[in-house]
């Protein structure tokens, strides 16, 4: 297909292309030069940033907002009554449409006084660091679509993840580690697997790299059998000669260049990543606040601690996942909100709060955005007696650090928590605001794909706009 034809078929015409060239000429687009040589070279953002890295604590499964963050006394009052509005259901079991009050009490926490549930006492203790968005909403009621949406901006798999965009935009401050790192439960993937850190059509270097928190941090980081450093060096030198010569026959294959670069990155990673899991340098107190001394919190706690260490060493984006056992979607409380939430909160509450405290204590919170969020929320009506089904119309997201307004509650839901009603924030709005704090304009961070200047937020379709009220002044 000719370029002309492609543009015609794509329905965009020359406008988009011209815009891109124009933007580049005016210096508005990100510099493309030199990128092929090293796609992870650190790059300046569009404007002076408030934050330089992001930790996404991806609480998959759909944490129940009305049991954790969004108190609904009305629910308690009308418990067992039939809700007048027919709610959108995902599974069976909610047909009776009976309102279900929260089994948990809510308390005012911190000096800001934001209300939080008793089941997350530790997150409550860092309330003054949190910007709580109670008016989030999303587009799909199934986990995979919801998670893909939260991580990539659309419900369909195939687009680059938020972390890939950040890696693409800003590169890596630390040239010895990938810019985008994923810390999942070594027990397995959740149902969406690697979809949540895919690079989509961005170059492959921007795909999230999984770092294991058990065993070696990266597979094959060290040779299976020890090899003398000078021998390895000579080997890499010979390899570089052979590859450079081979590359000369294919001067425009950027993949070959990436491969050559990768060997250099690999060598640097061997030095640096090896130390990542060495927790000896962490004090006993630190290990304790993350809950490493308790089998219930140790797994997720270790990942939170690793996240801090990675951010400390310059990694741009770290995505942390909760435990996959006994449930692949740990926040998915379909049958009993009380027991299911008590179980998952026991594992996730303390380490999440510890991460925020620890970053704060080390002066890193200012420049690190910590997001705590699920992919959607849950219904005000009961399912299977005491559970709740999925709800895309309202959920709560917590953000700490990175210039977000601390101790602030944004937006609200209706009286039973079914819908976000006031100051609604869409997932693309949230993405736009996150990029903004990283010094990036979501409409100007583009990647040419199929004749279109693609963006994370695709604001011409999603109307994404940053939410200034979330940002501290």
């Amino acid at each position, binding site marked *: 297909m000719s370029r002309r034809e492609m543009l015609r078929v794509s329905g965009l015409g020359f406008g988009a292309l011209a815009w891109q060239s124009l933007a580049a000429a005016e210096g508005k687009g990100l510099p493309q030069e030199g990128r092929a040589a090293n796609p992870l070279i650190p790059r300046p953002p569009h404007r002076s940033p408030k934050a330089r890295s992001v930790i996404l604590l991806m609480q998959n499964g759909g944490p129940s907002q009305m049991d954790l963050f969004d108190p609904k006394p009305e629910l308690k009052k009308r418990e067992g009554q039939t809700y007048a509005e027919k709610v959108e259901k995902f599974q069976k079991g909610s047909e009776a449409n009976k309102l279900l009050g929260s089994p948990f009490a809510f308390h005012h926490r911190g000096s800001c006084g934001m209300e939080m549930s008793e089941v997350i006492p530790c997150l409550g203790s860092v309330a003054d660091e949190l910007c709580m968005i109670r008016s989030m909403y999303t587009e799909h009621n199934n986990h995979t679509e919801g998670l893909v949406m939260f991580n990539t901006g659309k419900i369909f798999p195939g687009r680059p993840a938020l972390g890939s965009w950040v890696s693409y935009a800003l590169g890596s401050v630390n040239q010895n580690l990938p810019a985008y790192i994923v810390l999942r439960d070594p027990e397995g993937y959740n149902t969406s697997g690697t979809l949540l850190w895919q690079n989509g059509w961005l170059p492959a270097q921007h795909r999230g790299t999984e770092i294991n928190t058990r065993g070696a941090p990266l597979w094959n980081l060290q040779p299976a059998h020890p090899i003398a450093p000078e021998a390895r060096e000579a080997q890499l030198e010979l390899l570089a000669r052979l590859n450079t010569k081979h590359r000369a026959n294919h001067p425009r294959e950027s993949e070959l260049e990436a491969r050559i670069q*990768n060997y250099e990155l690999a060598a640097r990673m061997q030095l640096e990543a090896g130390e990542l899991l060495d927790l000896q340098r962490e004090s006993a107190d630190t290990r304790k606040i993350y809950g490493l001394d308790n089998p219930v919190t140790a797994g997720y706690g270790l990942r939170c601690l690793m996240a801090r260490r990675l951010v400390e060493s310059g990694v741009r984006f770290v995505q942390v996942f909760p435990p996959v056992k006994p449930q692949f979607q740990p926040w998915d409380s379909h049958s009993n909100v009380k027991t299911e939430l008590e179980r998952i909160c026991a594992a996730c509450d303390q380490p999440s709060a510890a991460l925020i405290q620890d970053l704060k204590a080390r002066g890193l919170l200012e420049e690190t955005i910590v997001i705590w969020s699920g992919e959607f929320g849950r219904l005000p009506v009961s399912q299977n007696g005491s559970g709740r089904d999925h709800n895309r119309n309202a959920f709560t997201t917590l953000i700490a650090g990175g210039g977000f307004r601390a101790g602030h509650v944004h937006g609200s839901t209706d009286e039973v928590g079914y819908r976000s009603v006031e100051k609604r924030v869409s997932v693309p709005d949230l993405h736009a605001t996150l990029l903004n704090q990283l010094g990036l304009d979501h409409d100007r961070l583009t990647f040419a794909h199929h004749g279109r200047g693609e963006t994370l937020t695709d604001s011409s379709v999603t109307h994404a706009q940053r939410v200034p009220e979330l940002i501290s002044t």
Partner: protein
Amino acid sequence: MASTVFWEIGLRGRVQYSIYNNCTRRKGTVEDFFSHFQIPIRGSRVRGNALTAPSRSSVSIRIITLTKSSLGSCGPFKGGSPRLRRFLPCSGCLTLVVATLLWNSAVGAEPVHGVHWGFKPLVSPPVPSTRDLRWPATPVDRFVLARLEAAGLQPAARADRRKLIRRASFDLTGLPPTPEDIQRGLDDPSPDWFERLVDRLLESEHFGERWGRHWLDWSGYVDVIGGDNDAGTVKLGEGKWRYRDYVIRAFNRDMPFDEFITQQLAGDETVDWRNASEFSPDIINRLTATTFLRHVADDTDENELNTADIRHGVWQRTAELVANNLLALTLHCAKCHDHKYDPISQRDYYRFAAHFAPAFNPERWLQPKDRNLPDISTTEKKAADQFNQEIDAAVARLEKRRAELEAPARSRSIEEKLAQLPVEIRADLKSALQTPSEKRSEVQKYLADKFEKSVLPTPEQIRAALAETARAEVAVAEEEILQLNHSKKRWGMLQAVYDVGLPSPTRILQRGNHLNPGDEVSAGFLTALCGPSSTGDKLLGTDPGAPWVGATSGRRLRLARWLCDGASPASGLMARVMVNRMWQQLLGVGLVETSDNFGVAGSRPSHPELLEWLASQFIQSGWRIKPMLRLIMTSATYLQSSAALDSPAADRAYEVDPDNRLLWKQRLRRLDAEVIRDSLLAVADLLDPAIGGPAMPIEYRPDGMMVLKGREGASPRLPSRRSVYVLARRNYPLSFLATFDQPIMAMNCARRTPSAVVSQSLTMLNDAFVEEQSAALALRVDQATAHASPAEKITKVFQWALSRPPAPDEASWCERFLSGQTSPVAADEPAKSMVRRQALTSLCQTLFNSSEFLYIE
């Protein structure tokens, strides 16, 4: 509440848009509206409240008046956010969506008649003429060259012989050529040496492993049954691997594709296996073929997941997978509503899915374990069961006799042991042990739990206590039992698909929800693929009835006939899809880049006429795959060099066609994951070439890596089989293969996306497997060139690993490397030779890491 939408298509191609309805609160622009729904406005641009049409379309005024009731409950847009409601004040929203879809189908990417290219009947176009008459070797080349000439580009030079031999070998067998293969090709003086090479490779039994693997990707093959979400648990479909072998055999035999498809969709409906007195190899083959329909994740073996919605999901995804694999359609989009882009209605979806409903009937569901079909006939099974029952009876008699013989010694031994216990519990314990375990009281259970082990004698103790004659008789009985058990009849399992009882009515499920069934539909085909004059229903009505065999609905066989009849648009689409995938494997990217989507939202073919021509050839040549591969591979297009040196011609080509869609050179292609692993084994001479059989098991290591079972700590020189025989898990592939982009089989994979991430470099540098192969190649080189100079050894390494001798500069780099590695000379000879071997190993590994090793040039 009625809404009226006016679309006025003016003379100058300008479209005026206006909406009238009872509600006038609408705010926001038209663009807002369309973009919110992500509805592409094809061939036009939206400005403010007007659409600008692409060209001088025919003049027409379209007025659509729709009411909510006429739209049914297409509820996805109900409710919604305030932002949505801002411009969707009432049911007019639905009207707008429908109107837009009508608009799109009226204007379409191809104006006027609007039939999507992929859905048109296949018409073989004339082969174009070209200015250059010498370059084209086949008609394929004239299609390619015509486009190149029109763009003012020139094809690249032909690749050299070594590279062509290597390329052809990888492409057809997935294995590198041996130095002998290279020499044979170099020495062949005949002008058709390459054609003959291709023929030889097509006849290799490794051909089926390579192309079978492609088919397994496209059809979503896995060895497991369920969703495979737990790394530590493997739920195997017993005997599922036989389908993999079936595929390999089919490719090796060049089974015509129409037959291949018919067997896979409906092999069970082409033989009366239910009444066969015995299962012939042909019957087993045809039943095995239907495993094709068993790749979708089916978790209903867990009782809590054996629910109506999951059953429906298995059935529906099976239909979706078939449509995606064979027709490259995104059928799943039409499950809940009419397809947004393609002319596939929701009704079409359920009619198509109805073909699979008798086999996957949610109302007569078979759990995976109950779908297992013995690979012997009912008669044979009955006889075998009878035989085995007799054996069991004989064994029982012998066991009884043995027990009788042992009884005195046994009770004596128990008495002795009881005597050692406190007197108070002896009687109670004895009676507890004499009571069958399920009838014991709580106290008896406690006693038995606590003392049973110490009181009951072991077989050895009983034997020792036996009298001489009794002991001999027991030994004879035991030997007999062993032999009898050994003589029992055994059989394997097939993961076949077959109709389960009479079909239930299939209904359109509103919003895809099985709790909300709508109109009943009969099994039928996709309307858009039934030609201009017939709908799927009509076609079915006029179908004289396919001659299916046995107690089955014949629906799947009819579907296969429709797909394979050679004349229907469906046949045309299936042929296009298949030749496109062949092209994709041989030239890196399909003529249609989105080889998994031939719908409107997919990409358009780079060479539409070539695609039509190839697809027609495919059908005309009797759906045979090997001749098609031969045709493509012997084209000058395929034979081009993949290199593109800096030159004005290359600069211009990159300028005009940076993605090489016009094929002004061959593409540089990274080896597939399996080919990398197999090549390492082959070069190291550790490849076990055995074809077929049960899969090599893999296991989950504590560090999260999936590795081959039983290789850890085994001799490094343990040969291994080809990667196609590694157990295929849905979510947990062998880590080595996953690193090189072997796909996760959530559904299927029409094209792989090779990456170049750092974990690949780390694997090639540090993984024990690569280390082993490097050491093995070094040993092989040392053995082949016992007293040779380092230069000769280096040449050997290059020849094995890269199919060529080193260039002078490379040779000198390598020599310097070897001497550097061995320089602090060890004292004694064994130590010296170990150091030399280590250096050579290191050199071998370096070549394995080189880009040249990893790419098909």
